[in-house]
């Protein structure tokens, strides 16, 4: 197995993006029967409020590859309503559970892809990032991927934003 570096992740950026894109679309479709599509239009500034974030890290030696997902609350509420009753959801919000499970499944696919390329990584548990350490809110170097869904107004809303980057693992806490 090869040692992974941030440069390797940069070199694989397009391919990893494809794996993430296919994974996000397939996972929403398989789990909830929801149709979402990939696109380029970025979310409008100020629409972060009400979003749900999840994050997960692939790790090897001194390198973390961190993935951050931002979900529109409307998309997650749609998904939740497909499998839970209103009464259950009134007392048991499940948005974070959905956000973490999507991150878990998608990043497992990335892990498998990197493994095929000779990079063996360990995957941590998905977690909800604290605001101060959330890369999607701190404008770190990012490659955003955007996914759309039919929102309650039947217009194409931005449902998911995904970012990933590789970094030194020294500061890792997860």
């Amino acid at each position, binding site marked *: 197995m090869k040692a992974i570096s941030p440069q390797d992740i940069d070199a694989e950026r397009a391919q990893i993006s494809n794996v993430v894109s296919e994974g996000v679309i397939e996972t929403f479709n398989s789990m909830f029967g929801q149709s979402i599509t990939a696109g380029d239009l970025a979310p409008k500034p100020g629409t972060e409020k009400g979003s749900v974030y999840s994050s997960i890290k692939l790790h090897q030696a001194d390198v973390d590859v961190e993935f951050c997902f931002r979900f529109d609350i409307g998309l997650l509420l749609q998904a939740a309503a497909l499998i839970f009753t209103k009464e259950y959801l009134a007392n048991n919000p499940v948005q974070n559970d*959905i956000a973490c499970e999507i991150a878990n499944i998608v990043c497992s696919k990335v*892990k*498998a892809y990197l493994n095929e390329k000779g990079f063996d990584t360990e995957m941590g*548990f998905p977690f909800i990032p604290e605001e101060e350490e959330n890369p999607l809110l701190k404008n770190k170097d990012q490659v955003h991927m955007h996914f759309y869904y039919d929102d309650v107004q039947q217009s194409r809303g931005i449902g998911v934003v995904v970012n990933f980057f590789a970094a030194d693992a020294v500061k890792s806490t997860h």
Partner: protein
Amino acid sequence: MTAPNIADLRVLLVDDNVVVRKLIEMQLTNMGFANIDSASNSNEAQEKISVTAYDIVFLDWNMPGKSGYTLMQEYREDRQYDHIAFVMVTAESQERYTREALKAGATMYITKPIAPATFKEKIERVLAWIESNRAAKTG
């Protein structure tokens, strides 16, 4: 051999994610399963298995605390739990994980996201395993 009555089979779902538990429960209910319990971690699962004779236990491979994989290994070392069909559920799609799980005693391996058609086909194979396992025990 007599096929097991699905409605009589006792099922335990073990996953730390309530959404995954619910999705599996819905698919099992659609197939006719009626006795479905759930646990959110391995400790809770062990408590439930100690008092109920489950026929099928779904285990999330990766859970905080004791993993589902480790829990299954422990039960497979104890012959009194030979009757349980352990179904490993995981997002790990690499073939080596499937081989490892089956070698450690898993009856079936299901990869997330769970497609309904694939799920049904795999559960039918689990039912066949239960049937043949019971037949072997009754001689």
